[in-house]
């Protein structure tokens, strides 16, 4: 059942709390990369867009969500845990030996994970494969893929973009988490891919650009994407890396805060800022 706008907003904040708590407990991981993606992930899983059955995770007619930017695994685990794919308190085992909640998603160990990712650039091709499988099997499931903005440097993304357009895959949506940073600095400095939506459009995709940390805009974008016919959709999601704890990251003098957990001493402040 789709949650209301207010419920989704509240859930997004609880997903944020899960992300910072589990990465601080793990002592490593990528909280800032996870936080930028929260609204889209929450909306997809709880806003009535993704059809899934936690009791039957491999249900052939389910919609697919592929986290191509696999280092943002904590946001995926938070929504999967809240959705009931596994006991929610298991999020605190993140990255520990024996836990199926590995540093990067492993589809062989955790129900609900559609793809084993962590080597950037590969998720969109997998998405094209799922979308083609739906066509072959005459099924109406939809495939969502989320990539990073730095990730768009990988040539494979554009090979996939060309093939999705060739096959007019209107059952495929890519969400580009445009948080303006990658590992070594600002995406605009490392490899400026602007205009990202213009590039997808040039490949034959339907595109939209919107504020990806605004739940209302996110819901509109996902509805529109489902209505597009004859073309795959690219949603350029303009976000902030570390959304929810930006004040704290400013104080810590690291806007990117890539690939490191909050120190235990900063956790309370982060949770208070998330609210």
């Amino acid at each position, binding site marked *: 059942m789709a949650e209301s706008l207010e419920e989704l907003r509240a859930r997004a904040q609880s997903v944020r709390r899960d992300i910072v708590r589990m990465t601080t407990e*793990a*002592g*490593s*991981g990528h909280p800032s990369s996870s936080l930028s993606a929260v609204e889209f992930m929450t909306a997809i899983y709880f806003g009535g867009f993704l059809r899934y059955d936690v009791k039957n995770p491999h249900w052939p007619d389910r919609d697919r969500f592929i986290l191509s930017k*696999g280092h943002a695994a904590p946001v995926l685990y938070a929504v999967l845990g809240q959705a009931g794919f596994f006991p929610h308190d298991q999020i605190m085992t993140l*990255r*520990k*030996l*024996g*836990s199926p909640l*590995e*540093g*990067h998603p*492993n589809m062989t160990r955790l129900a609900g994970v559609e793809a*084993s*990712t*962590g*080597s*950037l*650039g590969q998720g969109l091709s997998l998405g094209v494969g799922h979308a083609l499988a739906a066509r072959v099997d005459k099924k109406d499931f939809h495939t969502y893929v989320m990539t990073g903005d*730095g*990730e768009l*440097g*990988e*040539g494979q993304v554009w090979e996939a973009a060309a093939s999705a357009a060739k096959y007019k895959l209107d059952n495929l949506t890519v969400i580009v988490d445009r948080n303006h940073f*990658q*590992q*070594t600095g600002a995406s605009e400095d*490392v*490899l400026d891919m602007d205009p990202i939506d213009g590039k997808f459009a040039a490949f034959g995709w339907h595109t939209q650009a919107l504020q990806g940390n605004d739940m209302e805009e996110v819901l509109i974008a996902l509805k529109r994407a489902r209505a597009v016919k004859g073309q795959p959709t690219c949603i350029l999601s303009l976000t902030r890396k570390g959304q929810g704890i930006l004040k704290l990251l400013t104080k810590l003098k690291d806007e990117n805060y890539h690939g490191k957990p909050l120190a235990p001493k900063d956790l309370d402040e982060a949770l208070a800022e998330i609210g």
Partner: protein
Amino acid sequence: MAGASSSVATKREIGKATRDAFGRTLEALGADYPDLVVVDADVSNSTRTEWFGKKFPDRFFNIGIAESNLVGIAGGLASSGKMSLVSSFAAFITCNAYDQLRMSVAYPHLNVKIVGSHAGISIGEDGASQMGIEDVSLACSLPGFVVIVPADEESAKAATKAMLDHKGPVYLRVGRPDVPKVYAAGPAPFAIGKANQLRDGSSVTLIANGLMVAPCLDAAEALAGEGINARVLDMHTVKPIDRDALRKAAVETGAIVVAEEHLAHGGLGSVVAMNVAELKPVPIRYVNLGDQFGESGSPDALIEKFGMTAAKVAAAAREAIAAK
């Protein structure tokens, strides 16, 4: 055989990570190699090429997350007369860019240095996708490539210099965590293709590289208590392999253990077995990662779980001796 045992560290202390030693050496030597151009793919703060980059910004490029392009650019730079050095995680630079390594570097035999960091399971929590466990096998399968796996801080420094002095393609594998010192402070003995004998012995030879050299020394110490004299070789160069050292190991000790933080297939163990089978067949036992991916966990927990330990090496040595 190069390498005097006097250069071996007497105490087991933790030294710098091999990636750090590589990064500092590159930074220090940059001025001596004016033709050197370094290119990285958005991981220079992990591979440590950023230290060179800060000092020599005109000879450093960060091309974004694009490993195939990275290796292709290295080929172009080298074809145009530069010595190019490119780095990323071992998993990405070998697996993601393999055809570029083959066609744009190995086939034209260009003067390109490939540095793969975050090798093995000892990276810890990030898990399998980030762990290069097949990189040595892949690099050895590139005709004309030299393949080097240094054991510690001092040997990584020496290996970095040797790599820059070698003309032709080289793959250098370095690791993420701080690792025990094998060599005493000061320049470690290092010649490409020459094993370093760290300890002499007559009952068995323990052959290792990278992370596994220190456990082999510890295993030799433990075995000595049982009256087993183990020879220990740091086989830092997997290709070209030191056949002379292998022949002597087989003839003089009659049993061999090969230990490496790599898959069973195609790594140091395979190369040793292929050569020993031809030179002088003797029983060989292996300590490696087998045929499986890594997983998340703390480095120490994974080292234990995957058996990258002195105890496993010692057990393998007893088996090899029993099979004589």
